[in-house]
């Protein structure tokens, strides 16, 4: 009996996995038009290419991890981080309403056949963030991430996501003529989808950067079209390390793969944040757990924010934090959110530098 149950469960899992590419393939073939949003993607060509008016310095598009249920419903822990991000990047437009696990930006609770069921799962997760049913969201979205990374489906899936990113960018005021930098900040599965979508976004005149936050990255051909990729990871995060195992193109024995070629060209930086975990205590967003050896007594989440800020500053995309701090003081900092450090940490050559290699 138990054997049959196990076989049945595996069969169900396999069938679910086999059906995973259907949403994007059906979208491409025109079989399903559910959830397609009308709007700025239908902006006239003249409007989309018109001279920019008062654009921000850059656009940061946050693509959430596999726990996201829609473009406006993330796991709770991500909200303080996103608020902190907005505060630290006052000259950027931070965009969070792209749902990276649907080619039509249609969240699980949107217009779908099983939306009612997903709504129930969302309610349960709000009551209990560790609810086992929440794992179904993770499974469903993880399969979509694999669709993005699969060379058979990726070109279609990533086109859909890139198109949605572009649509939302236009909605938020982006104009290609302004050539403002676009930064895709992808957490976990969002990291892979960022590099996948970058293959198409690179067609825009703006430079395209990707910051992967514990992303499970494949050797997606989109990497070669990026201006730069920073992969931030924690040594206690085995999930992000899976990317380097599952995708042969990331193995050192494949020097001609997009990943290894881009690495060789110096356009990928791998940055270790410390003993970060993928989930739970001490993850990338954790604003409570202090880092054990941090000279400034920061939490995990604060250091993640500092690192992102440092990367963008170092790249010349924003002003030095010193000037920023002044700007922030003048611009009413939000309550209970971390304030950026006044000075970037000087390069240290002592023991702390080894324990705190990022910034």
């Amino acid at each position, binding site marked *: 009996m138990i054997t049959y149950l196990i076989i049945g469960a595996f069969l169900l899992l396999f069938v679910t996995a*086999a059906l*995973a590419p259907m949403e994007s393939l059906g979208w491409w073939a025109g079989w399903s038009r559910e959830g397609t949003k009308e709007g700025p993607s239908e902006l006239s060509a003249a409007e989309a290419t018109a001279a920019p008016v008062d654009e921000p310095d850059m656009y940061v598009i946050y693509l959430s991890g596999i726990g996201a249920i829609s473009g406006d419903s993330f796991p709770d822990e991500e909200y303080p981080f996103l608020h902190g991000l907005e505060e630290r990047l006052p000259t950027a437009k931070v965009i969070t309403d792209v749902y990276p696990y649907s080619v039509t930006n249609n969240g699980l609770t949107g217009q779908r056949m099983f939306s009612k069921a997903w709504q129930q799962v969302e309610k349960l997760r709000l009551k209990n963030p560790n609810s086992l049913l929440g794992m179904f969201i993770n499974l469903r979205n993880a399969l979509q991430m694999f669709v993005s990374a699969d060379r058979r489906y990726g070109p279609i899936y990533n086109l859909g996501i890139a198109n949605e990113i572009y649509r939302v960018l236009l909605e938020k005021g982006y104009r290609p003529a302004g050539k403002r930098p676009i930064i895709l900040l992808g957490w976990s599965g969002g990291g892979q989808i960022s590099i996948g979508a970058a293959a198409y976004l690179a067609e825009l005149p703006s430079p395209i950067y990707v910051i992967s936050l514990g992303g499970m990255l494949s050797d997606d051909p989109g990497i070669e079209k990026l201006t730069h990729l920073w992969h931030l990871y924690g040594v206690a995060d085995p999930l992000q390390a899976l990317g380097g195992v599952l995708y042969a193109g990331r193995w050192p024995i494949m020097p001609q793969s997009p990943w290894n070629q881009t690495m060789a060209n110096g356009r990928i930086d791998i940055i270790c944040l410390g003993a970060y975990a993928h989930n739970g205590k001490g993850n990338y967003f954790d604003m409570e757990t202090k880092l054990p050896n941090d000279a400034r007594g920061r939490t995990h989440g604060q250091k993640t924010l500092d690192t992102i800020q440092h990367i963008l500053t170092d790249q010349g995309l924003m002003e030095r934090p010193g000037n920023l701090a002044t700007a922030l003081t003048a611009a009413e900092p939000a309550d209970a959110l971390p304030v950026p450090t006044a000075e970037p940490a000087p390069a240290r050559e002592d023991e702390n530098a080894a324990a705190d290699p990022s910034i």
Partner: protein
Amino acid sequence: MEMIQEFFTYIDHLFQVINHALRMDPRLYEIVSTNRNSTWLVLGVVFLAGASTLLGQSVVLFVNRVRRGRFIMSLVLNGIIYIVSYFVWGVTIALIGLLIFPTELNGWSVVRMVGLSTAPLIFGFFILIPWMGPFIGKILNIWGFLILVSVVEFGFQVGLWRALIVVGIGWLLMTLLTNLIGKPVIALRNRVWHMVAGTTLDADTQDLLLQFSRSGDAPALLQGGKE
């Protein structure tokens, strides 16, 4: 009523045959030789294998924007193509076997048994699974090959090496035939495909995206993204 009963009996027997074939059970030969419906059972297995394998590789149909009706017809067509292909393959194996190991065995049974080597491909739709699908496809093909070898072993009552020789010679012969007289057959097959699917199905994802990006139907990014 009787027809419905016969249908369910057929389905029941089909599952049994698939089960025995997947396990490479020696009783399979007995079932195929004695069951009066065995030809239909084998046809059912090969047809399902063909349709399921195409479903597993259906990205090519989706990429070519084949409509739903044509999609279903394409699966049916591939089932029929599999039946024809495995019939030729079965006849080849049976002839080689009978030439090398003259026995009193019924060659027709061997032809049917060869068809059952497609049983693992009934799971061909699992090739759709992202990342591990192509690997599953390879496993299913190896599994099918092992069934084929065991079918020859058992059908002609020979050892592993002799069975491998028969399959090897069969493969060589099929390759030779494909190169010598295969072109018109392939051309005919492609014409039928074009009729059923409404496309040549010879473009890959990248080609089609490139072609599509230049058309008026392209999404906003591909169309208007460039300055």
